[in-house]
């Protein structure tokens, strides 16, 4: 399937989902669904750098939070001058901010071996969090309130609007991931993951490709984070920099499978839905425990994730 066709199919599925949710008409569905969609974007963003290039980012929460706080910042600026910015524009700004952060991090850590890169991302997370905690304009450690508009033209309920925006972002990120995967860029990314020296010797400009990956991945994180203040209404560093984002960003692609765009999506859909259910039925601590155990279990027992399990299952089926 070529990219325009794939985009159309995906957009049709998204539209059908939205209409179905509207028909059911339960707002809780939109609230829970928003979180699941947000995690699909986060998992896909992580996978572009982590799965395709083999560079593990532990600082996903930092990139997400830069999107979150970019919105808080421009919301406050908008309040001061009485020009409220529309959320889609805030998403673009958040994406640019996190993309720039990705570029900066890429330059800073370009020549680091994979493991050092991973540690550097953790350090970056703490540095950003410290700055936000000490920056009173965006609320500092006290946090900041965002007042969502109560009524939205055409759609009516505000959460429906947010859900729709995130749905659009999901379509955008899946199309981006799949397009990268099938282009020569994707092949270049895979050579970086497999062997950087050999990649260079085969003509792959590894440094430039890594920068592209950190920017694209960072921008997607930022765009996923930008609507978040409107979703929860009150942002404080503890929620924006929540380690759960970093853990889920890794766990979801690892559980789904890191080799293709399908894996992070499947992982995010399953794990995030499971988390919603467990949080409601048992507790949020139990939900995190299960996430951690699943991550450990999958990296040990099924390194290729659910997609890999499915592939070997169908391969066996064909043989017998």
């Amino acid at each position, binding site marked *: 399937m070529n990219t325009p066709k794939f985009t159309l199919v995906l957009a049709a599925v998204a539209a059908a989902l939205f209409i179905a949710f509207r028909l059911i008409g339960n707002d809780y569905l939109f609230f829970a669904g928003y979180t699941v969609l947000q995690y699909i974007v986060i998992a896909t963003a992580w996978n572009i750098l982590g799965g395709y290039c083999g560079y593990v980012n532990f600082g996903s929460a930092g990139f997400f939070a830069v999107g979150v706080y970019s919105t808080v910042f421009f919301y406050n600026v908008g309040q001061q001058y009485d020009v409220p910015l529309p959320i889609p524009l805030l998403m673009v700004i958040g994406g640019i901010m996190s993309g720039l952060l990705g570029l900066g991090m890429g330059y800073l850590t370009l020549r680091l071996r994979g493991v050092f890169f991973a540690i550097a991302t953790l350090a970056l997370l703490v540095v950003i969090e410290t700055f936000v905690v000490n920056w009173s304009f965006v609320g500092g450690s006290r946090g900041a309130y965002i007042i969502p508009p109560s009524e939205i033209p055409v759609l009516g309920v505000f959460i429906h609007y947010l859900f729709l925006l995130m749905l659009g972002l999901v379509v955008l990120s899946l199309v981006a991931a799949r397009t990268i995967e099938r282009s*020569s860029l994707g*092949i270049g990314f895979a*050579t970086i993951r*497999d062997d950087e020296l050999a990649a*260079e010797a*085969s003509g792959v400009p590894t440094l430039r490709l890594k920068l592209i990956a950190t920017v694209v991945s960072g921008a997607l994180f930022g765009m996923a984070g930008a609507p978040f203040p409107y979703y929860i209404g009150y942002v404080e560093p503890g929620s924006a920099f929540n380690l759960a984002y970093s853990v889920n960003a890794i766990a979801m692609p690892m559980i789904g499978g890191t080799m293709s765009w399908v894996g992070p999506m499947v992982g995010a859909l399953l794990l995030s839905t499971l988390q919603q259910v467990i949080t409601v039925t048992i507790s949020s601590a139990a939900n995190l425990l299960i996430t951690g155990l699943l991550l450990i279990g999958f990296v040990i027992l099924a390194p290729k994730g659910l997609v890999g399990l499915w592939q070997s299952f169908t391969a066996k089926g064909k043989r017998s």
Partner: protein
Amino acid sequence: MSQIMGQSVPEEAIGDVPLLAVEQLGKRFGGFVALDTVDLAVPKGQRLGLIGPNGSGKSTLVNCISGTLQNETGSVTFGGQRLDGAPAHRRARLGLARSFQLPRPFRTMTVAENIRVPLIYTVGARAGVHLTSSELEDRCMEVLTLVSLQDKAGKNPFDLTQVEMRKLELARAMAAEPKLLIADESMAGLSHSEVEDIVALLIRMNERGVTIIMIEHIMRAVMAFSQRLVVLVSGRKIADGAPEDVIKDKDVVGAYLGT
């Protein structure tokens, strides 16, 4: 050509200029001198053998020429262009290909995909070249057929035998359509007839105009292949000349062949 590469020399002047000129090349690792002011000029079309005991700096020399490592002193000039500081991928695009001593396949890709990488990123990145996907397929199979791996195109590198892995390593370097190919010990562990196959393959490539530097321990292969032989010991060049003269040189016999 970009500014970083320094001034380029007009085409007609290249006639006298060697394809590769290594001048006063030096490289240290901490206190250890891996290469000590090495000079080496390779004219276009030559088949050069490079020998030396383990740790004599052969691989470091290859790494400095191909850009995997950057030299500290001296210079590398290729086709009249200074390469100082140029990253490995740019050297590859200029026509400088190398194979690694220990095969380094892209392990999550198939054999054919491994070959496609230099076709896309080296050949396809050169000015005026555009490969359609069917041309890409054709060239890929062509290269694989050269090393008789055409039946393994869809396999994972880890399903290959040791010999096939070495062939893949060599084929990936060949796929870049280089002007200069550096084969770093591509025959270790191969049987008598396989060594002959590879030597014949390299000579065929040379006849098509590719300059080749072969680094090898197997003297039979070196003698069959080389038009000229260079000996490296402790980071210094101790002999350089016709193979049959070099192996009789008493310094060489003492430092290398004698041990």
